[in-house]
């Protein structure tokens, strides 16, 4: 049954090469912890992706309850945390995952750096990876405001003050982020939009590029 459905689609769209490209590749000995335990350092990239998937899924569930306006934002998080079944677990995963993804990405970056894997011909993949790093920091910064408690509010206020001290363009960055004269209602909706639509969109595009390049070039050889 499954096979005939697959064949029916494959006859028309020729999908086999698409997934064979992804599936048929070798995992060389030097990156396989089953052969050399020290090769676990090559797992950090995969774990970063794993945690990123958890972040996307838990974030999707959080938006079912979260309300991005200054009257209800805190109340909705409070409700989610204390009243919704498993709400504290979903929010806990998103909260701790945010730190974990930074840790994993940091370790992955160090592995690539110290094994010299960013060298020719993989320069572009390193640059894309660093852009992913910056996007993740942006996600961390914008996500911190969303619970709308005092910690969130004052950290964002300080963050925007720092951005404001950038010469020449600081004022514009501040207005862009705040959406007004103070950290308030428009800041919250802006940070929500940036956190939930703009940055994840950019992140997915960059991740696709990152994975496409690693598939095209293969993993760097042993040292």
């Amino acid at each position, binding site marked *: 049954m499954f096979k*005939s459905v697959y*064949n029916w689609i494959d*006859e*028309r769209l020729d999908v*086999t*090469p698409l997934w*064979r490209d992804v599936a*048929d*590749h*070798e*995992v*060389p000995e*030097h990156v*396989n912890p*089953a*052969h050399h335990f020290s090769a676990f350092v090559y*797992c950090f990239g*995969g774990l970063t992706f*794993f945690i990123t998937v958890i972040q996307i899924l838990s974030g999707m569930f959080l938006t079912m309850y979260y309300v991005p306006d200054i009257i209800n934002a805190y109340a909705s998080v*409070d409700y989610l*945390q204390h009243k919704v079944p498993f709400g504290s*677990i979903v929010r*806990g*995963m*998103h*909260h*701790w*995952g945010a*730190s*974990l993804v*930074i840790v994993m990405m940091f370790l992955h970056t160090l592995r690539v*750096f*110290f094994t*010299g*894997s*960013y*060298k020719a011909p*993989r*320069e572009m993949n*390193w*640059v894309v990876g660093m*852009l992913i790093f910056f996007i993740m*920091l942006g996600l*961390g910064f914008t996500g*911190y405001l969303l*619970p*709308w*408690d*005092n*910690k*969130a509010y004052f*950290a964002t*206020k*300080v963050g925007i003050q*720092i951005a404001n*001290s*950038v*010469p020449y363009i600081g004022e514009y960055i501040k207005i862009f982020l705040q959406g007004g004269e103070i*950290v308030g209602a428009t800041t919250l909706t802006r940070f929500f939009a940036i956190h939930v639509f703009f940055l994840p969109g950019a992140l997915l595009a960059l991740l696709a590029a990152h994975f496409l390049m690693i598939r095209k070039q293969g993993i760097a050889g042993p*040292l």
Partner: protein
Amino acid sequence: MAHGNKNEKVVYVGDSRVRKPGGATIPPDYTSFPGRSEAFIPNFLLKEWMVGCVVLVGFLVLTIAHPAPLGYPANPTNSAFIPIPDWYFLFLYQLLKYPWVSGSYVAWGVVGIPGVAFGSLLLAPFLDTGKERRFYRRPIATALMLLSLVSCYYLTKVSWDFYQHELEITGTIPEHTVREEKAREAAAAGKEPPSATKPAEAVELVDADNAEVKSIMEKAGCLTCHATDLKGQAGANIPALRGVGDLLTKEELAEIITNGKDKMPAFGTDLSAEEIGTLADWLAKQKATE
């Protein structure tokens, strides 16, 4: 279909828009790396999933053991709150506290140093162009990276220690901890946890128009911290005086006024023993449940 066997793949050519596969499914080539290579699907992926499951269980245990913190609703007029960013921004936060990258040199702090550091990280492959990959044969790149790591660790640690010190000297307990404590106390007493979204019901003042007490309070400046309506400042961890009689006895109140407690200064020298007595007497009468 064309071959009579419906499970056999038929490739349309001619007017079909589907490309005829010219050996598109290239058999895996396992020759580029010597040694014990392994197929990604299914062998390696299965192992990866097992590791993934272990990581996921560990992660779930963490979230159950340590719920995500949540303080009290944002109050822009709260002037006593000590701001703190997430831990991975602490190194930047700390950097900007040094006089040589703040004030009139702030451009160095917000653009100069982070720009050079992150810029060179971004462009590392174009700065470190040698063929050598082993880190011990690339002393400059390795040394710069190690130096940055040590600096980030140092700045983060200084920033965090300073935050802890600030909490200590101001007698502040982080709001999410206060909330958790209160919820735990309420649970132990078999009550609903106090809601952070609904304002606490205002306890009526007993003997509100006592002129003598008013003048003593004015003299000592009680209202500056405990608020003109005597509701305290929840955000700054300053207790309400309404209903304080339910929590403390007259003697305890007199003791706190005379010698201070936590953030509260001592008033033993500013007020006479008689005044303290009157005040403590009045405060002890402030009970919600008559």
